[in-house]
């Protein structure tokens, strides 16, 4: 439609052929998903904006996306491997094992905190312009995904440094990335929607993330958890994601508890579907309460 020129007659013709839009109370537009597609450019622009803005007026710019995970990896390796003497998985060097987990964890943690604040920080947009609101949290997750890709380069560098050759399993990494994405999105949608109404979640999110870092097997291998408790441990969906990443990256003798993994993936699916449902349910009142 945008390509049509401005001549009045064309506009008239167009309108006749056009379906009319009806706005009514409680009407969840059947066109929502179609609208989401129509607004895909906005989605792209919002993500583009956040990426552009992210490192503006910083001296080292995008290097921050490398430095933060790298230093965290160093600290974790020193604390958990050298001081606490925890075992690595298979024959992988400890830094690679840590980084295989750090990658999805930092993605999840950045995505969750960006996503849960995304609606509030775009309040002016939400109260002044219509577009499917799902775009806002989704583009926040995309931005973190870009960071994820950038810090993936560190992993490659580490592998080169340790002469570590991954097995065929590395090819399954995109599938696990998708799960990590779904988890960030699912949890993010819940928190973003809740945050609009209850600003308490502003304080809850940093807490979840701080807490999550310790209860997820980021700095250590999940094999140190006793076998009979593994399924309980898998109730934390990040356990499944991290185990999956390690399984794919480290290869070799790494074992993954598939039953635990299934639980995690099931929870991720539930969280995502529930998140979309809750978000859609509360979306219509965002402009009124934000």
């Amino acid at each position, binding site marked *: 439609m945008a390509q049509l020129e401005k001549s009045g007659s064309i506009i008239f013709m167009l309108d006749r052929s056009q379906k009319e839009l009806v706005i009514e109370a409680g009407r969840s537009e059947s066109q929502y998903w179609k609208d989401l597609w129509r607004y895909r450019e906005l989605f792209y622009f919002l993500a583009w904006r956040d990426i552009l*803005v992210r490192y503006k007026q910083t001296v080292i710019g995008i290097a921050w996306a490398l430095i933060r995970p790298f230093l965290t990896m160093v600290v974790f390796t020193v604390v958990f491997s050298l001081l606490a003497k925890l075992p690595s998985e298979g024959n992988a060097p400890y830094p690679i094992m840590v980084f295989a987990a750090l990658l999805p964890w930092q993605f999840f943690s950045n995505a969750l905190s960006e996503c849960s604040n995304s609606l509030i920080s775009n309040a002016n947009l939400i*109260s002044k312009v219509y577009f499917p609101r799902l775009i806002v949290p989704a583009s926040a997750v995309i931005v973190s995904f870009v960071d994820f890709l950038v810090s993936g380069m560190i992993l490659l560098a580490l592998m080169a440094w340790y002469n570590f050759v991954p097995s065929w399993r590395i090819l399954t990494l995109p599938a696990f990335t998708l799960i990590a994405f779904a988890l960030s999105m699912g949890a993010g949608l819940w928190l973003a929607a809740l945050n609009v109404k209850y600003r308490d979640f502003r304080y809850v999110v940093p807490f979840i993330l701080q807490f999550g870092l310790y209860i997820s097997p980021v700095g250590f291998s999940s094999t140190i958890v006793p076998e009979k408790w593994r399924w309980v441990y898998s109730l934390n969906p990040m356990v499944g994601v991290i185990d999956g990443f390690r399984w794919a990256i480290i290869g070799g003798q790494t074992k993954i508890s598939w039953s635990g993994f299934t639980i995690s993936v099931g929870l991720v699916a539930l969280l995502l579907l529930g998140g979309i449902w809750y978000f859609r349910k509360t979306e219509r009142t965002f402009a009124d*309460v*934000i």
Partner: protein
Amino acid sequence: MSEDIAIGVENLGKKYIIGHQKPERYTTLRDAIANKLKSLGHQPLRQRLNNDAPGREDFWALKDVSFEIRQGQRVGIIGRNGAGKSTLLKILSRITEPTTGRVSIKGRVASLLEVGTGFHPELTGRENIYLNGAILGMSKVEIKRKFDEIVAFAEIDKFLDTPVKRYSSGMYVRLAFAVAAHLEPEILIVDEVLAVGDYQFQKKCLGKMEDVAKSGRTVLFVSHNMQAVSQLTERCVILAGGRTHFDGPTDKAIMTYLVAQKESFDQPAYYQAPPNKSGNHVTWARVHTSEPQGLHCWGNPIIFEFALNITEPQEGVCFSFQVVNAHQQAVTYQWLFDSEKPFGHQAGKVILRCIIPKFRIYMGTYKLITWLSGRGRIITESLSDICFFEVTMQSIVRNEFDWHPDACLYIEDANWEIYHP
């Protein structure tokens, strides 16, 4: 719905629940849980349905609003603050949902509730044009095509690659409006965005809006600037207290609106002396404006009427009055001496009428100062700040020029002659 109706609104209503003594707009989780628990508890069901925690009140920002706008019609929405204009626009632009009723819209809608929505201070002018364009619903191709036009309109070509946080506020607004002005929707919804920028730029914006309106698009325009409304629209809906108060031709609507606004003054254009006055004094004064409620259309005859109570008849009585504008400047002065037309020799009531056949004082709010003096120019009574009335330029809409407050004090009749030597 018939073929050529662009926007149909039926019984539209929007309810907000307002909490008293609760300034925060968002609730906290604790409150929500506490309320849930309370309502789950032993409270009877009826009470739960009645909803409501004390201090909560329903507020209908809009109620039973219905109208239809035809394809290509330019409609203004006017009303006081809080009349529901913005709520209506928000519903029409799908930002918020109505509580009751339904709206049907045919055509691509672009709504401009604010200029520069989504501008990011860290981004450059160029980047913001793309971002803002996308937010307003333009495609990337479309923005690219109009990019040069937008930059030229905003007059910022030198600063295209400067972050907008370093822009002057004028540049910022110009850029923001320029993007919005290049939208090409079939239905354009605009809220009060012309109240930005300097006078020169406002005129430019208004001109642009006029082009849009004239190109056959449906325009819905909200403004407090009656001049802009009358230039851009042919029909107006007046909202008052969330309901439609009037729906009809713009000039009539504006008159109705201005008159209704005047109602908040008590007894405009009128003065009544307190009953205990003694001596020679004005018992009442009235300005007969061309419209009711103290509203006067420029150039029409006006009558100033004063009733004097003469208790001490004498020679040399003089009555005069000044018309004073909002800046306390006396704009005109009229006087009458007893020696010209006797009115102060006899005790009793006398009515003086000063008729000005063409009252050409410029638009604005005016009031009177009166002087009554006796023998030897001794002032017997002086009243100030009485008989408020308002002059509008509504009767002489000129499309090529919009009346701007404070442009002058007075307009004189004149003839222009042109010679080509």
